[in-house]
Structure formats: C-alpha cells, structure tokens
C-alpha cells in the first residue's frame, strides 16, 4: 500500500517538491517547513485559525489533505513579512489598532483580511462581519479587528494611488 505521494507546489513564492504522507493535512505540512502562523485549533474548519490562501482562495488548512496541494500555490502569513522586515500594511493595521490579544487566531484573520481586500478594497462593517463569519477570536477582539481591517483598506488604497 502506498501511503505517500510526491507533490510539487508553490509555497510563499518558492517551488517545493516533497513527499507527503496521505493522512497529513496542510497545517502539518506547513509545520514541517517551520511555518507556524497557521494553526490547527478546532480541527473542524470552524474557527479559521488555520486559514491560508490556496490559489488566492482562503482555505481551512486543517481540513485539506496536504497531497491536494500538488500543482497549487500556497500563501501563509509568513509571506507578508518576516520578523525583521517592515510590516505589511495589514499587519501594521492589526498592531496599530491592538486587534489581537492572545494572538493565536491572528494570522488567520490577517490572511482573511488579505483575501477580503483583494476582492473588495473598501468593505463596509457589515461586509467585514459577513466575511469573517468563519473566524473566531475567543479573546473577543472583534471591534478592534473591524477597525484594523478598515485601516488596512485605507492604507492599501493610498499606497496603490501613489
């Protein structure tokens, strides 16, 4: 019985060729590459802490078998900036607005924000709430997150106008 498969995919812009076991999910694979921003929490695709962008779509990494990444492109929070680089406007907005407490869900919210602002550069509060229906923050930092998303929208628009 063959329990593993060779796959080739883009990970934050780099081409990766690797062999993955059939039973591991995307989050476990990312951990193998020392990418720890996307986290498995509820294990059911309901909390959004494991959100990554796959071919520009927000996906719950805990529900997706890693073998399905073959031929796809994955973006994680680590693609936005490293620790010693200047922050991406979305990350900066989360810092400025204090839009996290424990921080465990934060990379998921940030990747969802990126996805939202790609689709809708100037969302209303209602559109933000609607879009984040699948992301949970147990610390209850929702009011700050909404303000942060709006700040990010504004600064991304300003930088695209330059």
């Amino acid at each position, binding site marked *: 019985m063959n329990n593993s498969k060779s796959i080739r995919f883009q990970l934050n812009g780099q081409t990766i060729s690797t062999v993955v076991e059939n039973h591991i999910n995307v989050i476990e694979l990312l951990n193998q590459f020392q990418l720890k921003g996307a986290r498995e*929490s509820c294990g059911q695709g309901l909390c959004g802490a494991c959100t990554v962008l796959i071919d520009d779509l927000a996906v719950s990494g805990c529900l997706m078998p890693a073998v399905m990444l073959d031929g796809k492109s994955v973006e994680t929070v680590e693609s936005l900036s490293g620790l010693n680089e200047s922050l991406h406007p979305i990350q900066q907005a989360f810092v400025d607005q204090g839009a996290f407490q424990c921080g465990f869900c934060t990379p998921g919210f940030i990747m969802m924000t990126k996805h939202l602002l790609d689709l809708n550069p100037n969302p209303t509060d209602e559109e933000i709430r609607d879009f984040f*229906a699948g992301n949970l923050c147990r610390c209850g930092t929702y*009011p700050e997150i909404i303000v942060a998303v709006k700040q990010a929208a504004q600064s991304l628009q300003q930088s695209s106008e330059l």
Partner: protein
Amino acid sequence: MITKQAEFGRSIPRIESKQKVSGTAEYMHHFTLPGMLYGKIFRSTITHGKIIGINTEAAQSYPGVVSVITGEDIKKIIPSPYYGPAFLDQPILALDKVHFIGEPVAVVVSNSPHIAEAACQLIEADYEELEAVYDEIEALTSSAIVHDELKPSGTFPDLKHLEGRKNTNIALDFHLRHGDSDDAFTKAKHVFEHAFTTQQGMHTPLEPMVSIAVPGDQSITLHSATQMPSFVRLEIARLLGWKENQVRVKSAHLGGGYGAKVYIKLEALVTAVALLLNKPIKISLTMEEQFYTICKHATTFKIKSGLDESGKIIARDCKVYWNGGAYADIGPRVAQKSGFTAAGPYDIDHVSIDSFEIYTNRPPAGAIRGFGIPQLVWAYESHTDMLAHELKMDPLEFRNKNILKNGAKQATGTVIEHMETELVLNTLAEKMDWGGTFDRGTGSIRKGRGIAIGFKASVSPTTSTAAITIHGDGSCLLAMSTVDMGQGSDTAMAQIAAQTLGISAEKIKVIRPDTDITPYDMGTLGSRSTFHMGNAVKLAAGDVLNKLQQMADKAGLDKNLAHAPEVILQKTYGMQAGTVVGFGSFKPNYAPTDLKTGASSNVTPFWMVGATGVEVDVDIETGHVKVNKMINVVDAGELVNPKIANTQISGAAVMQCGFTFSEEMLFDEGQLTNGSFADYKIQGIQDVNFPMENICVKSNHYGGPYGAKGIGESGTFGVSPAIANAIYDAVGVRITSLPITPEKVFQAIHMKNEG
C-alpha cells in the same frame, strides 16, 4: 537616559505585537524536540463505575506503538498519584474507579500522534457501573456518592475539618453570618425569594491544552501552556517527592487561558509518562478533549431578601450550589472566595450566605474568567431588579439606595476602601441617559434596557516576586513568572518597570516564564497580576535604582548628577561589564475568614467593580433578543495602558455574551453531546454587531503600583443580568436560567400571554 514621558498610562502597542502578526510568536502548541514521543489519552465511556479491567493488548501490538500506560503503571513512578490545589482527589490516570465520561484512563504512546490516536481506539475497558448523579441539587440527597471519602489537601488549615468525611457529595461548605438575618426577616415589611441557575460552559482557548515533559538527570523539564508555572513546579515536585530545583517549568505565549490552564492539567500525566519511558513526551488535546478537562461551574442560587418600607434591603439570605463535577480542582475556592460576595455590592446589615461546592459525575469545574462572580451577579442582579419592580421603584434608584459605599462594612466585616461602586453605577446611568425618554418599540419588536453591577474581591493571600537585571550597556531584562496569555501583562509590567527606572518600556526585554530563571509567582489568574506582580516589579526596579546609586557613590561619581546605568557600571568595572540585579517581593496583608461566620477584618487587598447597561430589541413573535448598545463601566484604578485596558473590558464582555446567549454544555445521562465548535457556539464577529462603549472611572487604588489594580474580569460581571433585566423591561418576562435562548424567551412570552 531619563525620559520625561510617563511610561505608566501610555497606550503603547503590546511589546510582542510584531511576533503575533508575523506568525512567529512562540506557543507550546508547536514545541517539538528530536526523538519526542506523542501521547493520546483513552477516556472513560461511562459516568461512574469500578474499573474491572483494561485490555491494552491490541493497542500494544499496533505497529508503531511504543507503550500503553494505565493508572497502575503510574504508581510505579508516583506511588500516590493524586493531585489538586485544594483536594488531593484527582488521579493522574483513573485508579479503581472512573467518575465521569471523558476521564483519562490510559495513554497510548507512539512517535506518531496519528498512530497513538488510531491505537487508542483498540483499548477496551470493563467497568462495573455505579449509580451516577449530575445535578447539583440532586447530588445533595442522592444515594450516588461520587467520592467515597473527602481528601482535602493537608496544607490548608481551613479545609482540615473536611478530612475523612464520608457519604456526602458536598466537597466544601462555606458559611457567612453577618448580623442576624433570621431576626431581620421577621421584621421586614417585604420578603421576596427567587432562584436562578447557570449552565456548564467551557473556556475553549483556541490553543488547546498542551504539555511536554523532558526527563533529565534526576530532573525533569516541563514545557507547558500553563498560567501557573510556579505552582506546577511545586506540585510536580510534591508528587515525585523531589526538591523544587529538580523540576523546571517553562511557559510561553498562551493561545488563550481564561482560567483553563491553571493548576495541574496535563503536566502530571506527561511527567509520569516521560519518567516511565525515559523519553520526551508531548500530549496535545483536541478542542473536544478540553471539554473533559475543566469547565465553568453550573450553579443554582436561591436568594431571599427582606426590605423595609422605604425600600432598604435589611436582610439577605443566599444559598449557592456549585456543580463542581467529578474532581474539586480549584472549585472549593470558587465556592468560598467568591461565595462571600454572594449578597452583592449592597450595604445590608443582616446577611447569611451558604455556599456549597458539590461533586457530581460531570467533567470537573474550576476557575474561569470571573472565578464564579458572573454566576453570582446573574442571580443577585436579576433578583435586585425584581425587588425594584415589586416595590415599583426605579432600578437605578433602588440600587443607589442600597449601594455599598466606601467606609461601610462588606458582609465579611471588611471595611470597604477604594471601591468606586457608586461612581461606576452613576457613570453607567449617565452614559445610558437613564433619566431620558426611551423608545419602547412597536409591533412585534419591543425595546427595553437594563443595568447590572457586580463586584469581586481579589483572591488572597498570594505572593508575587520579580527580578530586574541591568547589563553592562544599561540594557534591561525583566524576569517574572506572570504568563502573558493575551491580557498584555508583559507590556504592562514593562511599563511599570520603565516608569520606575526612567527608561522606555519598549527597551525592556521581558523573559518568558521559566522557573529556573524567573522567580516565584502564585499564578496568572483572578486579575491579580497588575496589582501583585506590578508591585513586585516596581519594588524590583526600586531595588535596582538603590543598588546603582550605591555603586555610583562608591565609584565616586558626582552625587548631584543623574548617571545612566551603563556609566555607573563602566566606572565601576572599568569596561562594559558587570550586572546589577534588583529583586522585589510583594505579599499583601490578609486576615483569614472565620470558619463559622466567614468574618474577616481584611479579606482582600482590592475590590473590582464592573457594571453593564444594555438596550435590546425583543421580537415577541420569535423570542429573539438583539443587543443594540452595550456600555461597560469598571473601576480598575489608574490604567497602566488605556488601550489594552479597553480591549480587556470589551473582550470580557464579549465572552460573557457567549455565556449569556449561546454557550451551554449539553449532557445526555452524563454524556456531553456538543463538545465541538460545530455545536457549542462561542461568540463570532456577527454576534458582536452592536456598538460597545467601555469606560474606566477615575480611581486610584492606594496600594496598587501607581494606583493600578486588576481589570481582566470586571467586564464580565454585569452582562448577563443587564440583558435579562432589559428583556423584562421590554416584554415583562423574567428569564431565570442561562443561557437566554430565543426558545426560553418565546415560551416565557407565551406563558405570560396565556396568563
């Protein structure tokens, strides 16, 4: 180096912000070591029964399984493997009996977590089932007895009287007698009695509980998502019969705690398995398993008040029954230390409180944001509102008439100081425009508004210590065992240290808790850190300044000038060298409560106050309740960091909205039926679709560091009863059990219309 800018009171972003938004913040969730093994817990499938046998053969022989360990195996390493902060009632793995569905019975160990999980399914346990009891009131008289004998920890004098008690499910009974309530009730003009209940819930931190144990040479290192590294060290050393310096406990950023990660959770289990196998071992729980580990107490609260003609409460009788589940954990302390506030923040001459921690065959209950206070406020503030309506008095006026003011005696006899109850209540009323006109709604949508106020005593007696190190270049390390689980303690403590040292907070490196390095702290819980650790940090910083001054004097530096630390060190050592360490230790005074009367002249170092006001829509056709506006007002003393303080209050209120509207652990004969986010609904962003305003009243706590005190729980206090009171205001029905579901509201409206 001296900055003019005040560090205390500055809204700086959390000092770990960059790590958290870049996905690089370290959580134990990801901790791994070469050669590390993974454990998966096999759990009881019955509520109460004797263990006849555990067949582990199939699991043992499953390819890739290293070992299967049961309670009997644990005894080889730890002959008496029972732990708990108040009662030594909880075995590391079940021994002789199981007490609830979900109790750990065995552990499968493998180098793959998937293999461990698969093999776990192959274990079979045989039980002789025993009668079980689930309800806290039924447990008082049930023939089902959860524990054959009470086993209070010998170290607490106030629990000694419980030792050896048999044939009871009452783990602890706390009594308070203030004045003579029996007599006062006979003199009262009006007497009203009501009963309220709350549901069992769970903290659901998004980083599920996780611990790793690494055996060493006559030593063990634990890497654990714990709120209490110092306690874990003590308790593991006690279990092993080792010295504290043989046990090292490291914590990291916590992906949420809320009280779930206090005392011992997985630490004793990973320690025993690591020592049995002499290998590093990691056990990570799933979201579902967290529900079997620690919960929020379900409660029944019977409350009776006697009033005089003018509407003054002259007597109050409180009977509180806490459903503690199968193991005591810190539940008995919830029953006592929150129990003594059960009569509410009111000035009542005659108070009687009986608060009972009760064993049942449910998952254990312990500490969760508020430490029992939200359950108490739910009852006494619903009741207080009902009293006002019975007397046809305005709920605000009625509260103001009875409010507990500074200088008055709380029910324990402790004189209230620095608790701005009146100011909090009246600030809320003003912000709500309580005296103004209010649109009552039309048609099927009716509008109402409600207020509620609660208070809490900081848990006492507890100790915090901190150390501050200055390097040769003047840079600064802060070592403390307070755990930052999102509340912002690293930032707050850096600000307090910076204020004292006269440097900027961002320049201070805060060391993650590590019991080999960071000095003792009782634990990160009960909103105690800002006050206790804040004081310790301030003392440590003061100690640094004293030592630097002595060095400067000795080195012959000009006494009339301020000198930077690096200048003093350079002058002393002749190069960039040396170390200055300042130490601070803080333990407030405390007078223990009397066993019979609950009396104490000094029951707490500080009081917290929180009030909430809401405006709601109630749809009388569906029972749906929509919050339109929420205002939270708290007394948190002086604010270390106003921005983070605001987020703390609003986060606490959002969490309590969950316990108000949706969160409830549902059981079918002791079997939890909704242990996942698919069925157990915490608040999402769409649930928080109303404006929320958070206000801290002007207050200065004389004993706090720069006037600060705790804030993390105060936002929870008033939320649930304010909402129930608003629903009553809108549609005239009273909900007495949490959570407030549309079904309950609809049924209550229906019943009222039926007459």
